Each structure stands twice: as structure tokens, then as C-alpha cells.
């Protein structure tokens, strides 16, 4: 137990003193996951709208598949990407394995089902009558979809937040395609999982606290946004 307590006090020191290594790792985590979340949102919100507003055969099956992929293990995504990006793999020529871009791609793949699924369900939460009302007030198809997205903005925002949370907290994929290279691809979770074993308890705990602090900040911002309404 004393180990844990020592680790905790040391972690607080690391945080208060703005330890350069801790800050660098936290910054990289935020950067990679933020980028992944942003790109995934740009893909998934329009794509989710497309799925929601179109009726086609197999739509239910598609939604089922998307929902199943919510729980895809991060290491499986990592493994898949590792095979694709490795020197001998089909995308080996890109040469991005063990770089932050590979990690971004991995996290996009990981959170796409989540964002897609929750965007669709957010839009389903807006009553059909809202779409009809907009249409009969003279909205074009695109204008009506935009209005419905606005109606569902909090639920869509929650989907984005959830995507970000899954991205920043995952370790399997980041480890496999990032490699936990000091000064290059080390992120909060990879440090926690690997460095802790080497006795770097303080660093790990400090980063764990940072991860939770980030989550707290994001939650506060979200709540503020909702209360403003």
C-alpha cells in the first residue's frame, strides 16, 4: 500500500511541477486521440445521417453489424492494422507503422462503429414529425437533415465525447501500431501499461490522474453546453 501512496504523492509532484515528460506524453495522447475523434466525426456524422435518412434493404442488418463492432477488442484493430502497415503488408509502402499517424488511423477505425451507431441512434431520437414539419415548411432534403442534426445536437455531441473517451483510453491498438517509442509514440495508456511493470509507478499514476482529469474537464464542458440551453 505504501508503494501506491508514494506513487500518488510523487505523481502529484510531477503534475504540479509540469514535468516535461509527463506533459509531452499527455499532450501527444490528446493530440492523437483528438485528431482521430475529429476525423472520425467528420466521416461518421454525415455517413450516419445518410444511413438514417435512407431506406434500403439490409439497413437493420447494417445497424446490427455496426453495433456489434462497438465491442471490437482494441488489440484486434491493432493487429489488423499491423498486418496492413507492416513492411510486407499491402500498405507497407506508406511507411507509417510505429508513427502517430498509424495510431490516429487505428483509433479512427476503433471508434468509427461507435460514432456511427450513436449518430444513427441520436437521429432516431428525433421524432419523424420534426422531419415532416421541416419538409412541409419548405426545407430541401439537405436542409431538413441539417435541422434534424441540430435537434439531435446533444446526443450527437455525446456520441463524439464517447468516441473520444474510447480513443484516449484504449491501449491495445496504440501499443501495437505505435510501439510505445519514447519521444515518438508514447501515449498515456501505453506508458501506464508498460512502464508500470518496469517500476515507474509514479509516472504511471500521474498519467492515470491526468487521464481522469481530462475526462472531468470534458464532462464539465459538456454539462455547461447543455445547461446553457
Amino acid at each position, binding site marked *: 500500500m505504501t508503494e501506491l501512496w508514494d506513487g500518488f504523492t510523487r505523481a502529484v509532484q510531477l503534475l504540479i511541477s509540469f514535468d516535461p515528460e509527463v506533459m509531452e506524453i499527455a499532450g501527444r495522447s490528446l493530440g492523437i486521440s483528438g485528431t482521430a475523434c475529429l476525423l472520425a466525426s467528420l466521416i461518421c456524422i454525415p455517413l450516419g445521417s445518410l444511413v438514417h435518412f435512407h431506406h434500403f434493404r439490409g439497413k437493420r442488418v447494417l445497424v446490427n453489424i455496426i453495433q456489434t463492432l462497438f465491442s471490437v477488442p482494441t488489440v484486434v484493430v491493432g493487429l489488423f492494422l499491423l498486418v496492413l502497415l507492416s513492411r510486407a503488408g499491402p500498405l507497407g509502402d506508406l511507411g507509417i507503422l510505429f508513427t502517430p499517424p498509424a495510431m490516429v488511423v487505428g483509433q479512427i477505425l476503433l471508434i468509427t462503429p461507435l460514432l456511427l451507431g450513436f449518430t444513427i441512434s441520436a437521429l432516431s431520437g428525433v421524432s419523424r414529425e*420534426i422531419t415532416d*414539419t421541416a419538409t412541409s415548411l*419548405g426545407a430541401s432534403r439537405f436542409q431538413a437533415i441539417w435541422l434534424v442534426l441540430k435537434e439531435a445536437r446533444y446526443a450527437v455531441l455525446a456520441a463524439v465525447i464517447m468516441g473520444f473517451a474510447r480513443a484516449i483510453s484504449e491501449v491495445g491498438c496504440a501499443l501495437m501500431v505505435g510501439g510505445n517509442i519514447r519521444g515518438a509514440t508514447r501515449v498515456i495508456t501505453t506508458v501506464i501499461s508498460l512502464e508500470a511493470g518496469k517500476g515507474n509507478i509514479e509516472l504511471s499514476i500521474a498519467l492515470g490522474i491526468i487521464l481522469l482529469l481530462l475526462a472531468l474537464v470534458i464532462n464539465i464542458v459538456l454539462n455547461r453546453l447543455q445547461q446553457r440551453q
Partner: protein
Amino acid sequence: MSLIQVVDLSHSYGDRKVLKGLNFSIARGEVFGLIGPTGAGKTTLLRIVDLLEIPGGGEVYFDGDRIPRSGKQRLELRRRMSFIHQKPQVFNLTVYDNIACGLNWRGEKRNRIAEKVDHILETVGLEGYKKRNARTLSGGEAQRVALARSLVLEPEVLLLDEPTANLDPISTAKVEQLISYVARQHNTTMIMSTHDMSQGQQLADRIGVLLDGRLVQTGKVNDIFHAPQNDEVARFVGIENILEGVVIANNDGIATVDIDGNAIQVISDYPLGKEASVCLRPEDITLLIADSCQQTAVRSSARNSFRARVSRITTVGPLSRVEMDCGFRLVALVTRISAEELDLQVDREVYAAFKATAVHLVEKGIGR
């Protein structure tokens, strides 16, 4: 030329036929009331006219042109109309943004929008509400926002689906007032569905009765209410006494109808042996006290007079509704004062008298 013409329109949801071959047309500036019970197909009809739905069969013509089933022209046509839905659906935005929506979508200039929205807010009496979130409004206020949101577009055609169905009497009065104001001021063509008879009577120029997907009768308000085409319509427009019988004699336009052994005289040219329903409005029945009545009945011009036993009395606003048994069931409406004067009580014997002209003979409905 009519602005809207509906030709042989039919529609189904799955196996259920909702509209069954409708034909009617509406002139520019006309207010057309669509009455019928819940589930008769009123909403579906309005949705098709508003181009929200593509009809299963038949055509709708707008301003002389056939409405296409797909393509960009639908949006253009839709933008000439506006539809007030039964449940006011306000967007989760401010009142101002709600009302500005349609104008924004039409690409109006920002300052023009502001002007128009301010003006319409005044018209509907919601001046101070501009910045309120529309979701926080009461039902009546929300319906006024929905109305303003449509009216601000100055549509050629306004479609209203039971606009006061969920409102309290005061809000209902306000909304009705607004509707008739718009109809008069802007000469807006309207189709308004309602199940409220008096609202139809009050606001519409012409009425169509929609029963089970069929337009059973269309006509001037008075015709529908006083000369319904069959017993279904009669029942729907609130004629409480509908008695089935057979014509047993007809002398120069005065028919005698046998109803379970009772003869009722009616002005009608229905021939001998025809099965028909006798319609009699409860307010057209006069009640007389049994002992003094013989002479009175003779003196009054009422051709029909029946000895009856009062079975139930209920109060309906300023009126008393008297249910009687005179071999058949009869309901009369009298003022409360005359009910007191006649000392009406359950089991009391009275005479129910009514004129031959007050009775209306109709054919039996299709569905029976």
C-alpha cells in the same frame, strides 16, 4: 379554375386502404373543412396534398399542373403551401429561429426575415417570446408558434390538421380567430381537418365528410348539417335520433314511415317499401305535459306526436337532454327553464311532438 384538384386518389399503408378513390376540388381562396372521425384518413389526405407522401393511386393537380411523383418540382410546389400539424412540433431552438426557419430555407435576406418575424409575432400575440426556447412553451403557445411559422411564409395554401385538437377553450378560440383572420386578410386557400362540428361550421365555406377513406358528402355547411346524405353522415354531424324504418305510404310528398309499429310522418318523396333512416335533431322536438297535451298537439302544426316516458335527464350547459321511451328511443334537447316548467322527472309521462318538416329521411349507409 380550381387551385387544387384531387382525382381518384387512393392510398394504402400496407394492406390497410386508407383512402378509397377521392374526387374533389378546391377553389382559390376557399376554406374547405374536412370532417370525419379519427382514422378516417384526414391526415393522410393532407399529407398527400402537402407532397409529404406519394399517393398510391390517382392524381393531385395544383394550379392546373399535375403534381409529379419525384423531382425538384415537388420542393417548389411544396414551398407554395404550408402545413400545420396536429401536434405542434416546435424545433428545439428559440421562438425567433423557429419562425425564421422557412424563410431561411427560401434564402430570404436577413433583415427581411427579422421584419417579417417581428410582424408575425405581433399578429399571433407572442411579442415578448422571441428569445425563449420554443420547447418551454405551453401547448397553446407552441401551436401559435407553429401557426406563425407557417403564416410568415405567406403560403398560397394553408393545410391545417386538427389545429385545436389538444388545446384548452381559450387557446382554441385564439387559434380559430387567427385562422379566420388569415383567411379574410390574405384570401388564403385552406384545407382544415377537424372532428369538431362547430369549428367546421364556424370556419369553413364548404365541408367534406370523410368516413372510412371515402368522401361521403361534400357541400355547403348548412346542407351537410341539415340534409346529411345517409345515416353515417347524420350520426357524425350530431343528429342523435336516427331511427331505422320502412316507408309504408306516400301521399303527395308526405311519407309515412313505420318504425317498430309507430308511424312517423315525413316530408319526402321516398317510394313505398323503401328502407330508410329517419333523422331528427333533438332540438327540434317539443315536449308537452301529458294531460294538457291533446289539445296543444292539435293546435301546434306538429304532425307527429308520441306519448313517451322520460328515462333519463342530463344537463348539457344551458340545456337539458331528455331521453325518452315512446316505443322507440328518442332524445330531446330543451332549455333548462322549460324543463323546470314542465317539471320533467324520470318516469314522468310526456308528449314528444315534432313537425314533418323537421324530420329528414336518408338512405342507409354503405357500410351497413
